[in-house]
């Protein structure tokens, strides 16, 4: 424990250099803007900013990109409260009570409580990250290719199960992502696959192009298709003196904030869209234990403080599987994995020992980033909310221009823009047919790792598939995966029989 404090102190030394503080501030501001703007989520935000980090050292780059991630989580609540339009998916639940509070003239306390709750929960999340990551990294050293394979399959199944409306549809997206990931050179033999003689395809499909295409261009194409007046509503911007919550508000919220932080931290360690699940879980918990459940949905401050805290805590703990196992459990951390790889850092159990400056520097910067966000989000909320006044018909072409510019700068290649446009069109069709993009992106990033783990496992076992169930850790992941698949079916059957039983007894 003492060792972790020592390392953290070193991390603060790295994070508080003028350069890193500046990048942390830029990340936090850009993240808040990304969160505030409906339609631009943290995935598109991080993907767009990756090219801007090429000239930086890996530590500064990841400090900035991580800042965008948790900054977007802070900013996402602003539109939920002021407009009833979630800035990103994790803020959907904040609309319920946040918008009701705004309608009653209490937008200020709602926004302030979001910022305070996010700060407290984010700090608790980072605290957990500091003390859990090193022992988990040591435990992960026992992982071989079969364990990694089973863990990645487990992650796909869980993510597919909790995103979208249908498990089969999400699994299809994951398999498509894996197939796209096989384009380029075979990671074991070095032979070309699905390149059709194209030289740019030899290095595979650029994941940034897929991310910006699916989540940036796809979102814009969906938005332009909707009536313009849908997002051009009047924005009620609170004044600075209206922002501060009363003592009663703080008293009512503190329990919700702490519970939200705990729920968020636990959920962040599990594969899936952690912030989204964490906000739902926190909201349900608060409503269940509240002495005034009837106030929920009509402007209960706990319904804003709890989910927003859970959201930010989940963001911080989502860094644990990324840093410790090298396996992102959610799309934004998948993008961060891609960014780490671009900067020559391969996350995994050895990351803490091989890149201590980066690991502890990034963690320390998260504390600083949370503090910056608290400062930004309390007095400057009216300023950020003013961005919502930019007409959509100016904003959408601007996003397209940034997407094209950002995409070109990754490899100075027009080919990447074509790939981005292809996936932009695909993203639009996927939204039309209600297919989820998240499993595809995660699978694309993890695909090569999964293939190598699969082939190495079979090489070790001389082609025997028993290797995946003979090793206890691997078997545990596979059992977990089966439970995740089977339990919902049993639950449905149980509910059906219960309904049937209830019905017959009535007759």
């Amino acid at each position, binding site marked *: 424990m003492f060792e972790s404090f020592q390392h953290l102190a070193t991390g603060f030394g790295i994070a508080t250099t003028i350069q890193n503080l500046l990048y942390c501030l830029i990340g936090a501001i850009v993240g808040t803007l990304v969160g505030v703007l409906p339609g631009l989520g943290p995935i598109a935000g991080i993907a767009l900013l990756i090219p801007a980090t090429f000239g930086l050292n890996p530590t500064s780059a990841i400090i900035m990109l991580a800042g965008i991630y948790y900054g977007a989580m802070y900013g996402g609540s602003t539109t939920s409260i002021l407009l009833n339009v979630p800035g990103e998916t994790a803020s959907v639940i904040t609309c319920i009570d946040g918008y009701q509070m705004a309608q009653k003239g209490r937008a200020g306390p709602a926004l302030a409580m979001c910022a305070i709750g996010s700060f407290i929960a984010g700090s608790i999340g980072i605290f957990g990250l500091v003390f859990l990551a090193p022992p988990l990294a040591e435990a992960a050293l026992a992982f071989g290719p079969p364990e990694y394979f089973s863990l990645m399959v487990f992650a796909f199944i869980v993510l597919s199960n909790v995103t979208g409306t249908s498990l*089969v549809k999400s699994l299809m997206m994951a398999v498509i992502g894996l197939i796209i990931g096989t384009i380029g050179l075979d990671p074991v033999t070095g032979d070309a696959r699905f390149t059709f003689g194209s030289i740019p395809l030899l290095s595979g499909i650029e994941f940034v192009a897929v991310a910006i295409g699916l989540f940036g261009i796809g979102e814009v194409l969906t938005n332009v298709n909707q009536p313009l007046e849908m997002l051009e509503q009047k924005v009620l911007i609170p004044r600075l003196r209206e922002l501060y919550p009363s003592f009663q508000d703080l008293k009512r919220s503190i329990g919700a904030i702490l519970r939200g932080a705990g729920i968020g931290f636990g959920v962040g360690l599990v594969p899936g869209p952690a912030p989204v699940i964490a906000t739902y879980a926190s909201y349900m918990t608060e409503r269940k234990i509240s002495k005034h459940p009837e106030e929920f949905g009509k402007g209960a401050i706990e319904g804003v403080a709890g989910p927003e805290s859970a959201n930010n805590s989940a963001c911080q703990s989502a860094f644990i599987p990324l840093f410790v196992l090298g396996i992102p459990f959610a799309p934004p951390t998948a993008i961060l994995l891609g960014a780490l790889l671009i900067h020559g850092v391969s996350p995994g159990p050895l990351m803490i020992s091989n890149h201590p400056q980066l690991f502890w520097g990034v963690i320390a910067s998260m504390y600083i980033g949370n503090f910056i966000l608290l400062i930004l989000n309390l007095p400057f909320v009216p300023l950020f909310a003013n961005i919502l006044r930019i007409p959509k018909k100016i904003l959408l072409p601007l996003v397209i221009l940034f997407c094209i510019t950002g995409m070109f*700068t990754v490899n100075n290649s027009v080919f990447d823009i074509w790939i981005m*446009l292809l996936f932009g069109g695909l993203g639009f069709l996927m939204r039309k047919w209600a297919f989820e993009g998240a499993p595809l992106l995660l699978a694309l990033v993890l695909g090569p790792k999964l293939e190598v783990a699969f082939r190495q496992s079979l090489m070790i076992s001389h082609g025997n598939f028993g290797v995946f169930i003979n090793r206890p850790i691997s078997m545990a992941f596979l059992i977990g995966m089966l439970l995740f698949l089977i339990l919902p079916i049993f639950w449905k059957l149980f509910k059906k029989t219960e309904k049937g039983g209830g019905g017959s007894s009535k007759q």
Partner: protein
Amino acid sequence: MKKDEWIGGIVIFLFGAITALLSLKMPIGTFRMAGTGMFPLCLGILLMILSGIFVLNIFSKGKKNRVKKGSSIESSSPIQSVLFLVTMVLITLLFNPLGYPLSAFLLMAVLLRVLGAKKWTTTLPLSFVTAAICYFLFVQWLKIPLPKGWIGL
């Protein structure tokens, strides 16, 4: 599920089939020593199975699906999305010959018009200012080597 989702299912099934067919042209090897085509072949077959289940599921629940209404995307015309995409394709084609500043200006001007900006007196200055800001931000300040085109900027 929406009524035309099955089209997506069929497209995905075909994608899986093509992947499997192309993989068969590569060395497959054995499970002990998997060849280049083994992994994509398994994925292609898996995708065909999943999309097959998906399409069958839609048809088996056909009656229910027809009752449900489509989303707002379905109900409105996708003409603006198509115009946006066509504009982006054209600008990408002209990206190198025109250069970045001119491409950015044209992209903004056309997209603003597509989204309903009626007066050229607002569209042109707005596009010019945006292109100029982007040029100074990316080319002059961040020193990103973007195409100069025939105007040489």
